[in-house]
């Protein structure tokens, strides 16, 4: 499994043609207290860079974009009862959805953890 990040602060764990998507620890820190997460239902077709989920913090609603194209296979049901998982475990239990990648080559432009850390340091 390899983890990639986007400049929009989503992460993507890739194993073969399946992947898990969430938002980074930096992103949750910027959002503040998360009170609701709207995740795409299984079967939803998402496209790279397209809006795929919505995170509601106390303050505002923010779009989450899919880091890659594909079909959603599972949404994280735990987020419905405990949206604060996005704050407490953004890069583990607070994942948003899993998908089957339609074009694994899309991954090539994404950052690895070191490149993302360097990117965040510039913000």
């Amino acid at each position, binding site marked *: 499994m390899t983890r990639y990040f986007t400049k*929009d*602060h*989503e992460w993507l764990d890739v194993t073969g043609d399946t992947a898990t998507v969430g*938002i980074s620890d930096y*992103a949750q820190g*910027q*959002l*503040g*207290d998360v*009170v*609701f997460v*709207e995740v795409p239902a299984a079967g939803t077709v998402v496209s790279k860079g397209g809006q795929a989920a*919505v995170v*509601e*913090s*106390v*303050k*505002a*609603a*923010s*779009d*989450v*974009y899919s880091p890659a194209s594909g079909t959603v296979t599972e949404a994280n049901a735990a987020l419905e009862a405990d*949206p604060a998982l996005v704050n407490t475990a953004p890069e583990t239990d607070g994942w948003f959805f899993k998908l089957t990648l339609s074009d694994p080559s899309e991954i090539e432009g994404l950052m690895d953890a070191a490149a993302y850390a360097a990117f965040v340091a510039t*913000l």
Partner: protein
Amino acid sequence: MADIVEVAEPLPLDALHRSLGARMVPFAGYAMPIQFEGIIAEHLWTREHAGLFDVSHMGQLLLPLAADKPLETLLPGDITGLGVGVLRYSLLLDEKGGILDDLMVTRRADDLYLVVNGAVKAGDIAHLRAAGLAVDYREDWALLALQGPQAVAALQRLVPGVADLRFMRAAGFGWSGHALWISRSGYTGEDGFEISVPAAAVEALAQALLAQPEVKPIGLGARDSLRLEAGLPLYGHDLDPGTTPVMAGLSFAISKRRKLERGFPGADIVMAELLDGPATKRVGLAVEGKLPAREGAEVYAGDVRVGIVTSGGFSPSLGAPIAMAYVAAAHAGDGTALTIDVRGRRLAATVVPMPFKPKNYVRAATPTDGASA
């Protein structure tokens, strides 16, 4: 997740906020702290203890005492009859009765002291000057708010005597050789104070307040969630020139004498609305579920669009979403079942009285042990 880049000027407490770990955002043209440890924690701390807010972006204006009568041509409050040391909430109105800003006016011994919203202060000053009023804009003063049930204990320790102020009363005090103007007022629904202090002294005063065990720094995020729970409207969102005092549920700001004498902008329209009832009203909405309804969300009665949300979010004290909306009068009664469209979902909502959370104002002077008589 997109970033917003705006020009934002630093306020006098900029360095202190940053040293306390604040996340700074542009607001009303200034860099302001949106949060320190987190909006929910800061919100709940203020409801139980005392929160320190930097509201130095707001405009502090001085007018000569003789401006009381001409000021009444711009707003519906009784200013000539205002006692020394008394605050009055009022509204600058346009010729149609539309709200240009909401503000506090205090008569002091030698002047009138006005506090106006930061985002529209330049327009307010131009509006006042166009009416022939001499406006002294005190950019050299900062403004702090100390809010919460323990605010009085914390501030009384530093500034003996403040506990004797009642709600909506103000007086001059001294601290460490600096003159302070302190009112018992605020924007959270809690007991508390607003403290006008020379910009050169504000950091030392803020540090002294933060050293009190009851006090933590609070950002704009919690300020917004606190005022929303208290049912207090926010200018630019719940109030604008398209709203009138009657629509906004702020008829209390039209003083009795002014109702009889009129002579304020849009008086005929506003008084007709007061008599006949407004076509739309600002209401509170309790939203079912966990998904917040935000500003701009449309409100429906069945399939008919009957209103729009002007402020909405998650209430940390209630653990549920709440909103303010302007709704057609026929659907504005308490208990009316409505729905709100949020990204195609229809959320069930009920019209409820505001405040969502009861206010804790101190209407009589608080007895204190020791320091003051």
